[in-house]
Structures are given as structure tokens and as C-alpha cells.
């Protein structure tokens, strides 16, 4: 434990790392501008040849202090911040915050809005997983898949654009509902997209997943035993890839997920391939969910009657949703005023990345890249 003065004396991470270096090792600075750290993650590595002796992620390069911003904004103003936390699965964060406020204020959304939320959130999950898939293969040196994934994603983003009004930083969930409705033309397009995506997933499997070079790069790489995942609080595909069937949508059901039929894919492999396969199956499950939701969706209002300035009572609430990367939690404390008293955003990538230091010890540099990719990190979400 150090005081701020002592930290200034000791120097920051770089020096801290250089001091403890052995004679025959090399300190390598991976990032914050490295092609495979996807954004501005920085990892300090001490390597012996190409073997990693220790690794330490250095965070904070895209820190924006969302939690402080929340304290100066009204509840409604803060919704747009949530799209910037995790830009790949923005709607899940949107939902976590809106859901927390709704729970505390006891203003549930209308049934039709619940279904619209499920549909848009799952579409968003597919687009997130597709991007991860392409980027992960890019990390492994395969250039082409990411362009195929973007082809699918383009069609998906067009649908989401018409459904929510934006393509990346969504903010379409409001307290008590959503901003835009789905018409028959959109429903038709979603159905067509589901059929197309199923076809494509078959192709991806035969073209990429079964490729022996790819299997050589992901099999038996980065084993996360179950107890290690639990110790670090890992969630999402990282945890499910270690054989724990934990999904917030099933464990702590919210919205209309209990009425939808889907399974929680898991893998007992515990390695990078396990996490890869879990995500590929999640794509199929999300398609199943959307397929049921567009059929079951009831008619009605998309926005519940709300006062112009919602009164949020004093108290605390914790609302968790399942994001593409794991459990997204929003802990909210209210003093009864117009803006949150304290808000804590629990980012899944934050916990998932914290196990990287232990996981990457003794692996090759190329494997560390593979492991980093298999954790599916979104850096703005970690730094917040």
C-alpha cells in the first residue's frame, strides 16, 4: 500500500517493471497502440525469448469517469452516456441503467417495449459477437473473415438503424419503454436476416472453425479452470467456456426472457477454443430468441405513461443484465434528488481482463495475443 507521494517517488508502471527485471529478459510494452490490443489497452510484458514471464495490463488510457458524470446529470441525460461505455453492446448497458432506474422508481415498461428491448438487444449482441469473431481471427493472422463478418454486420446495422435510430452508440431505451416501434416491413427484414445468418454460420463453421491451422492456434491455449474464473469474478462466455452454465438471463431472469426458449451454451474445454465455440453457439441462440420474440410480440403502447420528470425515491438498487461479454451490473444509490447520488458500473471485461496476468504466465507471445482475443475485451468498458 502506497500513498500518492510514494507512488510519485517510485515512478509509475514502466519504472516499477524495469526495476524488477532480470538480466536476460526483455521488458516489452505491448500497446497502447498495438494492433491486437484493440484500442488503447497497454500490457507490460517481461519476456524471456518469446516466453512471457509476467504480464501486467496498464489501464486508464480511455478513462472518462462516467460515474462522476452521472452525479452531475439528470437520470434521463445519463442514458446517452451508456452507449459510450461499451460501444459494441451499447444496448445492454443502456438496459442496465434504464432497468435499474425503473426498478427503483417502480415504473415497469410496457409489454411491447419489453419485447422490442429483447429484439434490439439480441441483434446488438449478434453484431458484437460478429465483430469479435472477425477481429479475433485477424489477431490470429486470418485477414478475410472480418470482411465477411462486416458484410453481415452491415445488414444488421441497417435494421438496427431503422429500429433504434443509431448505428453504434444506441440510446433507444427510455424509462418505461423504447423510443421507436417496429413495423411489418422491419419484422420481415429481421426474419430474412435470421435466415441469412443461419446460412452464413454454417459457412463460417466449415470455412473457419474447422480449419486445422486455426484449431492449432486455439486448442489448449489459455486454460481457465473453473475455480480461477470464480476467484476473479469472470462472467459471460469466458465463464461459460470454463463449463459454468451461468447466464444472467436465466439466473436472474429479467424482462421477458423467461418466456423465451433458449439454452445457455457451455463448454468444458476451458481453453480459447471453448470460449470460441460458446460464442459461436450464442449467435445461434440469439437468432432463436429473436425469431420467437418477433412472433410473440404483443400489440400495444411502446412507452408507459411517465411523469415528465420521473421522481426516483431514495434507496439503492442493483440491476444486472447479460451483455455480450458477461454480466453488466448497474448499482445505483439515490438520495431522492434529480440525479444519481452514486452510480457504480460493473463492467464484465474489467473482471475478465484481471485474470489475464495470471493466465498469460509462461505462454508464448503469440498465445498471449490469442488469449487476449479470446477474452473479447472492449477497452472503453474497462476504463469507463
Amino acid at each position, binding site marked *: 500500500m502506497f500513498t500518492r507521494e510514494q507512488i510519485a517517488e517510485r515512478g509509475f508502471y514502466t519504472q516499477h517493471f524495469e526495476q524488477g527485471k532480470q538480466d536476460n529478459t526483455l521488458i516489452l510494452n505491448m500497446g497502447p497502440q*498495438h494492433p491486437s490490443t484493440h484500442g488503447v489497452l497497454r500490457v507490460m510484458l517481461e519476456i524471456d525469448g518469446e516466453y512471457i514471464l509476467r504480464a501486467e495490463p496498464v489501464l486508464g488510457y480511455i478513462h472518462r469517469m462516467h460515474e462522476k458524470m452521472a452525479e452531475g446529470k439528470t437520470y434521463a441525460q445519463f442514458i446517452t452516456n451508456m452507449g459510450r461505455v461499451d460501444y459494441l453492446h451499447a444496448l445492454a448497458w443502456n438496459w442496465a441503467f434504464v432497468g435499474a432506474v425503473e426498478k427503483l422508481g417502480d415504473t415497469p415498461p410496457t409489454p411491447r417495449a419489453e419485447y422490442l428491448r429483447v429484439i434490439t438487444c439480441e441483434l446488438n449482441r449478434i453484431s458484437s459477437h460478429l465483430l469479435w469473431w472477425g477481429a479475433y481471427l485477424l*489477431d490470429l*493472422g486470418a485477414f478475410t473473415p472480418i470482411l465477411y463478418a462486416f458484410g453481415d454486420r452491415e445488414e444488421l446495422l441497417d435494421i438496427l438503424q431503422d429500429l433504434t435510430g443509431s448505428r453504434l452508440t444506441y440510446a433507444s431505451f427510455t424509462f418505461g419503454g423504447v423510443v421507436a416501434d417496429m413495423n411489418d416491413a422491419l419484422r420481415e427484414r429481421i426474419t430474412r436476416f435470421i435466415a441469412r445468418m443461419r446460412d452464413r454460420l454454417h459457412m463460417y463453421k466449415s470455412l473457419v472453425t474447422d480449419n486445422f491451422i486455426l484449431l492449432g492456434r486455439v486448442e489448449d491455449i489459455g486454460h481457465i479452470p473453473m475455480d480461477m474464473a470464480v476467484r476473479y469474478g469472470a462472467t459471460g462466455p469466458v465463464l461459460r467456456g470454463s463449463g459454468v452454465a451461468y447466464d444472467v438471463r436465466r439466473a436472474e431472469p429479467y424482462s421477458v426472457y423467461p418466456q423465451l426458449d433458449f439454452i445457455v451454451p457451455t463448454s468444458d474445454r476451458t481453453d480459447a477454443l471453448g470460449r470460441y465455440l460458446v460464442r459461436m453457439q450464442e449467435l445461434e441462440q440469439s437468432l432463436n430468441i429473436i425469431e420467437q420474440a418477433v412472433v410473440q410480440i404483443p400489440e400495444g403502447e411502446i412507452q408507459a405513461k411517465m411523469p415528465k420528470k420521473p421522481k426516483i425515491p431514495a434507496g439503492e438498487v442493483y440491476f444486472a443484465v447479460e451483455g455480450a461479454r458477461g454480466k453488466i451490473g448497474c448499482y445505483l444509490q439515490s438520495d431522492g434528488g434529480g440525479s444519481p447520488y452514486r452510480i457504480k458500473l460493473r463492467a464484465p471485461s474489467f473482471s475478465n481482463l484481471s485474470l489475464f496476468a495470471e493466465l498469460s504466465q509462461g505462454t508464448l507471445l503469440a498465445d498471449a495475443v490469442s488469449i487476449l482475443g479470446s477474452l473479447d475485451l472492449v477497452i472503453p468498458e474497462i476504463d469507463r
Partner: protein
Amino acid sequence: MIDPQLLRILIALVGILGFVALNALALVYAERKIAGHVQRRPGPYEVGPHGILQPLADALKLMGKQLTTPRDADPVIFWLAPILCFMPVALCILPIPFGPNLIALDLNLGMVLILAFAGLGVLSICLAGWGSNNKWGLLGAARAVAQNVAYEIPLLLAVLSVAFMTGSLNLATITEGQGTWPWQWNVLLNPLGFIIYFICALAETNRAPFDLPEAESELTAGFHTEYSGMGFGLFFMAEYANMIVACSVATVLFLGGWNGPFAPGWWWFLLKMYALIFLIIQIRWTYPRVRFDQLLNLCWRWLVPLALLNLVYVTIIVKL
């Protein structure tokens, strides 16, 4: 009086440099177009019809760029490396018979000359990585040395198997030893040798899936991380020139050189060579990259023993 042989070599060298430079431009365009179509996009499209002038624009851009030497780099080694990388490749093309009379230097030991100069390429990569005083560059250089040294052995063994069959290291003789029709070519008599040679050629030219010295998702850009402008441009040209050499040698050794049905000549040679290059490009845009230990395992565990077995097989064929 100038020695006519020397004059011939000088003229040939100038011609080869032009050929290599033009080819590099054409291949850059081909690579980007093929990549585009593999990835369901049109590729370069803006400069000239169908983007055909794009490589020219790129070349001008590279030449117009400022040459920067990183602080603490060794300037002599740093700038020697790209030149050293490009020149030996040009020499490698000297003894290659493109047509019945289209050969710059008819050497009895042509194959040895190619192998000797090709070995210089790794030295330049090593110098580039070392001289640029960059940790990623150093790692890339270390990878390049280990990879090239390892793959030179099965490569030599595969070449040796052909030399056993023809009893010569003269590339023109090897070409003439093969007949007009595809079934008379070495690739059918010695298919394993061809496969081993082709895999090794991929590794020796640092092409995907064996592009570990410059694996950009791991080592940012490997040995040429610090190079900009024509420094990078020369490495880039050398990569394509290396591909030309590797594919030309494969054409001579295994695919009958300029031999071909109906009208033997240099067009057959170029056709075969470009077909091989096309295959290499296609592989690059299809497969992920292997890991380093997998790369070396493939070499020591599979290619070297197989190449040795292949030699035994070839000796038996020759005896029969």
C-alpha cells in the same frame, strides 16, 4: 576491351532490375485485387480504370516520403539492410532460363548461386531488426533467422532430389531434361519433393501462413517496424522479387520450365510462374498464421524426415 561476358551480365542485370520492379508493381496490384475479390470487395478502384495505376501512385508516395532514422538506431546497418535485402534477389534471377535462349548467365552451378544469394536475404532481415533498435524488430529478426535456417534444410533436400534425377545443377539442363508434356515433368515423378519445396518456399519468402517475422498482430510489423518510405518500399519489393525467384525455381525444377505443349517458349514459363504466385497469394488471404513452435515442428518433425525419405525414393527411381 570490355569482356563480352561482363557486358552481357550488366545488360541482363539492368533488364532484370526493370523486370523485378515492374513485376513488383504488377504483383502488388494483383495481390490487392485478388485479396479484394477473396474478401468480396472490388479492391483498388479509384486511380485509373479499375485502379490499375494504384501501385504506381503508391510507389510515388513511398518515394516521396522522408527517410527517417530512429533515435539510437545504427544508421549504417539500418540503411544497409533494405539495400542488402533487394540486391541479392536480383542476382538470383541471373541463372534462370526463361526461354530456350533467354538466360542471362548459363552457369553449371546456377542452382547453387541461387541458394547462396537467397541465403543473404535472412542476413538483411537480421540486420534490419538489430539495427533499428526496436524490441519488436529484434523479435522479428530472431524469428526470421530461426525460421529461414530451419527451412533451408528441407528446401535443399528437395532441390537435391531433383539434382539427383537430372544429374546436374545447371538450370537449363534441368529444364531440357524434362519433356514437353506435363506427365514428363518432375512434379509427377517427384510429387513429394514439389510439395516440400513449395511449403519451404512459402516459409523462406515469409509469406502467410508463415509470415511470422512480420506478424503484425503479434509484432506490430516485425523487422520492418521502424522503416518508412523507400526503406519499407525496398523490403516490399524484395518480398515480391523473392516470390518471383521461388516460383521461377519451382517452375524450372518441377514444372518443366519453358517446356510446354504446342509452342514451347518463355510464355509457358511465365504462365507457370504466375500460376504459382497466384496460389501463394490465394493462400495468404485464406489461412490464419501458425505459431512459431508449430512452424518449427512442421519443419523438423515432418519436412526434414520426409525430404530424406524422398531422397531415398528418388535414388531408387534413378537406379531403375
